[in-house]
Every structure is written in structure tokens, then in C-alpha cells.
């Protein structure tokens, strides 16, 4: 292994946002008072923009290198040196990290700028940006960390910031609850992640190659190929654990429930954390550990099944939602499901590609919905919107482009990335998964166009007062929208399908992702599948058009299918929250009650019993002391007193009687002397 190239500025990509967070977090209140919100915005945005500049610089350095030497490292110091566990505080950039930091700092920077407009009326402006910067720093640590442990530091950091930002408007109890829910659900996943990490470290250690550094782990991965644990290959178990972590962070079944609730946070947060960056951490992690995942076909099958199930379930729920952000939230869950389908069929590069394009159009959609919400005075119900096209042309245009992108119409970004995943599923003969994913794509087109028509077309259903104040958002908010929309149009072209010249993107990731999904299929088949997916998307869009634009097809027809069973099921989100409430939350509470009762009656009983027994023994001891010991002492005194009293009689004071006594005693003495001792 060549010694990697040491580049010193990588640390600043992480440290600059961290610095912004520290300055705003500690001094923000004062700065905001004395210098205004502009200064706060500058302190928050500048580090992210500079970090983006550094990321671009690093990208150019990478491009200038041979593909197999594309690895930059910035080693700060040895963090942990404990037996065979040696971890450096080191950041690294390879092609995969480069993509991630460009997404995080680029899209993150745009969202920062947007947020200075969106959050302008909020008094806790500085606190918001301190969290946002801290989040960016944590996310960058996650993608730049050169070891699984440092990745985990960032992993936890983004979880913390996510909690803080979801509950940002904490005075509303529901928001605080949503924050708690996100944090607790993520902890379940984190537990799996930690177990997976331990298991990998343990098995590598058993082979004499203890390391948590990605490069070394990848290098020594083949050594654990034949190791078994609990009757299964170690790689399968470890990757399953890691995938549990990914389901938490990336909102997959069964841990996706936190993400829709996370919409309680401010909209820029939803865009940054719950659409573009944090939720993709799981996908990034699986791509980063692709060597291990590829060693475990069973895990990949599980991932593909979970991914397609999530994509479908979330899409069906999104069909019935009326909250503009909830639709996008379920859409995000659904798209993350697609990314995991990509991972599951072995297309890590395709998953990362979809991650990147999704970051563009989903951030654009969220920011667009934020722009709408901003204009509508924090109204999120689409039934009260409509016809906004005429008041908000820029928001409408960018939103429309992003809808086309997510629905998968060529030549927008989503078409290329989603089609890549579908094609990989089909070409590897995962036909069931392919078919279900295709259905999901149709639903995606339907609910996105439904949202588009309900929000921007038709009559405005807002009340009079709101209507009067409708306005396009300020340019600080629309500019990021335009940039993101441009990304949604153009980002797809770096990952063209094989028939159109092959994916530059997959080629770029090759040094990191050695594992390839094999493609078995003719060009004709690829063309055919592509046409089919566009056709399905068009169908979805056309049904939405009929229902919500022409209104010639009543949504009631579908709602009343099977007696409204499906509609209720989707509308109630498959009753997942209810089931979790009944099983896990109430189960936990019941367990807590039981433990509390155990504590109260058994543990406290034992303690109190011990105390009572001690008290009883002390009482007995006291009695013994009082009656036996004192009794003996008093008895001695009493007997002495009594005897003295009796013998006092002898001392009559009568001299004669004394003399008789003396006489008798002397006589006796003489008799005894003469009789026995003579």
C-alpha cells in the first residue's frame, strides 16, 4: 500500500463549520443583539461556503491523480492507542468522500443561505445557525473520517443535531416529542451499528489485523471470509448489524417512523438533514463498507427486500397525505428505499448516484415547499393552497423541474439515477424487486404531480387575508432554488446509462467501490426497460392530472376501492405508529411499571425488612441491656444493700454484747487451738 498523500487543509473542511457553530453558539446572542442577524448569517454561511471551496480544490487534486492513487489524508494525531486498537484522528478524501463533501457543503451551503431568509423572523436565529453549522461539521466528520469509529462520531453528532433541530421550536410539545422520537428511534439503530463495528473489529483482530481504518479494513477483509459466528458467516452478521444502524439513520423499515415526524422542524432543516444529507448517511456507510457487504449475499438480499418494501410502503402513504411536507417526507423515505434497492442488488455506485441527484431535487422540493409555507404564513395543508403559480413563478418553476426529476422523466437527474437502480435490479434477474420498484416509481409520479397540481394550479383556496399577502420569496431564498433546480436538471448527465455511453460517475467511484453489480442484458432490453419506466411515470402523472387538474376523474373512486380499506390503511400510515405505540412504547412503559413495582415491593421490601430486623434486634439488645446487664449490676447493689441492712443489726452499740462476742470468740479460739493444733 503506498503511503497516502498528506493534505493539511482537509481538517479545515470540518473545523470551519465547527468554528462557526462555536462562535454562534457561545456569542450568538450578543452578536445578534449588537450587530444584527446579518452578522449571524455571515458567520454561519461563510465557513460552509469556504468549506465548499476547499472541497472543490480537493476534487481537483483528486482528478489530477492516477485513479488508484486518489486518496488524500490529513492525520491530526493518534486518538486512541489501546492494545491492538489504534485509531487516528484523521480525515481522508477519496472519490466517495469527495462526492459526499461536495453534496454536504454545496447543497448545505445553499440551504444555509436560504435559511437566512426563511428564519429571518425568528428570534432564536443565532441558535438555529449554531445547530445548523454543528450539524454540517458532524456530517463532514461522518463522511471524511478515515475510520469506522470516526464515522460513528459524526453519525452520533448528526443524530444529536437532528434532535436539536427537529425540536427547534420546542415550546410546542409536539415538536419536542418529534425530536425525542427521532433521537430514540435512531438510538435503536445506533446500537446495531455499534455491534456491527465491534464484531468486525473482533473478527479482524482474531485474524491478526485489528483495525478500524477503512483502508486497512478493506485490505484485510478477505481474511474474515471463512469465519463463522452463531452458524453464520461473520460478514453476514456484522453487515446485518451495520444495516440495522443504516435503517435507523436512513429511515428504512422498521425504523422509518421518526422521519415523517421530523418535519416538525423548520423547513430548511427538513431539506438539509431529512432529505439531502443526514438520512443518506446509511447509504454512504453501506457504500463505504461495500467490500464487507459484497461478502454477504444474504445481507444484500435482506437490504433489497427492506429497500423495496420501504419504497412501496412510504409511496402508498404519500398518496394520501395533505400536509405538503409530509408528502415530501414519505417521498424521501421512499427514495431512500430505492437507494437501498441499489445497494441490495450490488449497485453501490448507483445508490450513491441516486443519493446525489436526490439531494438536489429533494432539497429543491423541500426549499420550494418552504417558500410556499413562508408565503402562506406557515400553512402546510395543501387543501388550503392552489393556484400559487401566478404569485410565485420562480418557486413554481423550480418546483416543477424537481417534480419532473423525482418522477423520473428524462433528461432530468432522477431519471438517470432511478433508472440505473431499476436496470441493475432487472439485469440481475431480481424481477419481483424490479416490478415492485417500478410500481413505486409510478406512485412517485402520481403523488408528486398531485402535490404540484394541488399547490400551484387551480383556484386558490386560501382565506382572504392570506391571499392578500401572497408574494414571491426574497431572492436570498429563490437563488438557492434556482441553483438546486439547475442541479436537478444537470446532475444526471454524469451518470449516463450504459447505452448512452456509460456512467462517468460509477467510473469515478471505482477506486472505492471495487464490487460491481454485473449487468446481464442486451441494449435492446435496457432501452425497453427505460421506455417502460418512463411510461409508468407518465401514467402516474396523467392520473394525477385527471384527478387534480381536469378533475374529470374523482379520487373517490380510488379511495373507495375495497370499501375504503386501502385508503384508510395508507391514510393511517399502515398503522405503524399505532402498532409501535402498542408494542414498544406501551411495552416499555409496562416493563417500567413492572420494574417500578419490583423496586417498590421487592427491593424496597428487602431493604425495609433488613431495617426492621435490625431495629428488632436492637430493641432486643436494649431489653437485654436494660434487664439482664443492668439487672445483674442492680442486683449486686441490692443484695449488698440488703445484707448491709441486715447485718447492721449486729452493730447494736451495746458494749456488753460486744464483749460477750469477744469472750465467746476468744474462748472458741482457745478451744480450737488446744483441741486441733496442739
Amino acid at each position, binding site marked *: 500500500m503506498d503511503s497516502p498523500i498528506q493534505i493539511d487543509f482537509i481538517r479545515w473542511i470540518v473545523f470551519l463549520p465547527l468554528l462557526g457553530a462555536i462562535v454562534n453558539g457561545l456569542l450568538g446572542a450578543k452578536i445578534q443583539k449588537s450587530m444584527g442577524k446579518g452578522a449571524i448569517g455571515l458567520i454561519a454561511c461563510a465557513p460552509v461556503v469556504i468549506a465548499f471551496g476547499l472541497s472543490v480544490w480537493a476534487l481537483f487534486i483528486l482528478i489530477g491523480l492516477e485513479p488508484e492513487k486518489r486518496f488524500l489524508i490529513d492525520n491530526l494525531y493518534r486518538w486512541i492507542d489501546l492494545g491492538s486498537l489504534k485509531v487516528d484522528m484523521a480525515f481522508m478524501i477519496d472519490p466517495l468522500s469527495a462526492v459526499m463533501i461536495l453534496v454536504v457543503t454545496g447543497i448545505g451551503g445553499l440551504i444555509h443561505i436560504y435559511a437566512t431568509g426563511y428564519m429571518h423572523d425568528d428570534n432564536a436565529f443565532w441558535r438555529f445557525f449554531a445547530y445548523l453549522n454543528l450539524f454540517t461539521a458532524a456530517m463532514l466528520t461522518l463522511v471524511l473520517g478515515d475510520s469506522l469509529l470516526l464515522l460513528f462520531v459524526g453519525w452520533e453528532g448528526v443524530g444529536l443535531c437532528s434532535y436539536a433541530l427537529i425540536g427547534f421550536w420546542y415550546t410546542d410539545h409536539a415538536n419536542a416529542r418529534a425530536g425525542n422520537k427521532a433521537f430514540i428511534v435512531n438510538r435503536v439503530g445506533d446500537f446495531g451499528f455499534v455491534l456491527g463495528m465491534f464484531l468486525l473489529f473482533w473478527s479482524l483482530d482474531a485474524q491478526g489485523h485489528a483495525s478500524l481504518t477503512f483502508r486497512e479494513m478493506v485490505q484485510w477483509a478477505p481474511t474474515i471470509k471463512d469465519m463463522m459466528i452463531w452458524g453464520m458467516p461473520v460478514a453476514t452478521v456484522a453487515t446485518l448489524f451495520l444495516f440495522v444502524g443504516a435503517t435507523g439513520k436512513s429511515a428504512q423499515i422498521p425504523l422509518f417512523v421518526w422521519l415523517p415526524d421530523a418535519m416538525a422542524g423548520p423547513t430548511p432543516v427538513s431539506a438539509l438533514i431529512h432529505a439531502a444529507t443526514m438520512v443518506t448517511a446509511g447509504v454512504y456507510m453501506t457504500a463505504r463498507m461495500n467490500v464487507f457487504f459484497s461478502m454477504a449475499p444474504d445481507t444484500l438480499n435482506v437490504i433489497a427486500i427492506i429497500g423495496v418494501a420501504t419504497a412501496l410502503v412510504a409511496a402508498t402513504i404519500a398518496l394520501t397525505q395533505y400536509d405538503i411536507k409530509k408528502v415530501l417526507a414519505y417521498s424521501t423515505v421512499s427514495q431512500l428505499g430505492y437507494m437501498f434497492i441499489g445497494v441490495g442488488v450490488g449497485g453501490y455506485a448507483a445508490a450513491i448516484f441516486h443519493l446525489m441527484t436526490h439531494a438536489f431535487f429533494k432539497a429543491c422540493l423541500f426549499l420550494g415547499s418552504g417558500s410556499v409555507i413562508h408565503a402562506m404564513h406557515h400553512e402546510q395543508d395543501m387543501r388550503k393552497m392552489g393556484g400559487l403559480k401566478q404569485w410565485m413563478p420562480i418557486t413554481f418553476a423550480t418546483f416543477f423541474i424537481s417534480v419532473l426529476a423525482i418522477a423520473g422523466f428524462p433528461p432530468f437527474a432522477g431519471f438517470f439515477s432511478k433508472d440505473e437502480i431499476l436496470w441493475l435490479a432487472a439485469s440481475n434477474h431480481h424481477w419481483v424487486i424490479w416490478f415492485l420498484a417500478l410500481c413505486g416509481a409510478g406512485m412517485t409520479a402520481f403523488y408528486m404531480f398531485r402535490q404540484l397540481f394541488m399547490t400551484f394550479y387551480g383556484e386558490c383556496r386560501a382565506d382572504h387575508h392570506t391571499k392578500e399577502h401572497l408574494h414571491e420569496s426574497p431572492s436570498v431564498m429563490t437563488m438557492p432554488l434556482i441553483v438546486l433546480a439547475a442541479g436537478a436538471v444537470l446532475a444526471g448527465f454524469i451518470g449516463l446509462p450504459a447505452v448512452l455511453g456509460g456512467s462517468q460517475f460509477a467510473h469515478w467511484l471505482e477506486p472505492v467501490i471495487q464490487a460491481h453489480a454485473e449487468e446481464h442484458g442486451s441494449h435492446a432490453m435496457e432501452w425497453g426497460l427505460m421506455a417502460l419506466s418512463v411510461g409508468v411515470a407518465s401514467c402516474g402523472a396523467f392520473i394525477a392530472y385527471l384527478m387534480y387538474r381536469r378533475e374529470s376523474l374523482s379520487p373517490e373512486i380510488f379511495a373507495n376501492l375495497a370499501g375504503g380499506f386501502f385508503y384508510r390503511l395508507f391514510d393511517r400510515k399502515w398503522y405503524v405508529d399505532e402498532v409501535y405505540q402498542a408494542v414498544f412504547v406501551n411495552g416499555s412503559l409496562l416493563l417500567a411499571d413492572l420494574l417500578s413495582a419490583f423496586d417498590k415491593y421487592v427491593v424496597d421490601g428487602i431493604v425495609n425488612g433488613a431495617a426492621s430486623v435490625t431495629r428488632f434486634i436492637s430493641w432486643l439488645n436494649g431489653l437485654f441491656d436494660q434487664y439482664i446487664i443492668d439487672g445483674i449490676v442492680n442486683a449486686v447493689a441490692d443484695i449488698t444493700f440488703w445484707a448491709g441492712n441486715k447485718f*447492721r443489726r449486729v*452493730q*447494736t*452499740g451495746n*458494749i*456488753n454484747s460486744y*464483749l460477750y462476742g469477744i469472750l465467746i470468740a476468744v474462748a472458741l479460739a482457745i478451744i480450737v487451738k488446744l483441741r486441733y493444733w496442739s
Partner: protein
Amino acid sequence: MAPNELSSYLIIGAILFALGLFSVLTRRNAISVLMGVELILNSANINYVAFSHFGSGNTDGQIYAIFVIMLAAAEAAVGLAIVLAIFQLFHTIDVEAAETLKD
């Protein structure tokens, strides 16, 4: 019984001792008791002198007799002072009246 024999002196001493003892035990008058004590002491003196004269061949017994006479004088003085104190306290010199120690 020859007059100039040890036994006759011892008999006289014994008679004197018995008389003294009788006086001490039976008299209720304190002065009579003291007089009984004097008799006992003098009977002892007779024994000393008799044994000195007939027995040991030295004068130790006679010196002891002088000691006893001196002691008897001191005893008489102390005894009479006690009798006087008893009289002042009880207005009698009956020894059986002085029995307050009993209570």
C-alpha cells in the same frame, strides 16, 4: 497450796481476771466497766510478774507490767473522758443506754 509458788500467783491472777471479766460483762455502769477492765489488766500484770520471777530469769515480764500500768493509766484517762462525753450526751452513764448506733 504453798504461798511461795507460781501456781498460787496464777490462781490469784485467774480469780482477778474472772472478777474483772464478770464486772465488765455484767455492770451497766460505765465506770464499773472501766474498773473491770482495770482488774483484767492487773490480773495480766500479776501473771507477767509471776512468770518473770519464777520462769525466765530475766526482767522482761516486769518491764511489760510497767508498760501495762502506764497503758492502764492512759486507758483510764481516755475511758473517763468517753464516759464524760456519754454523760453529757445521754445524761446517764448506763452503757446500755448508748445504743443509737443500732438504728
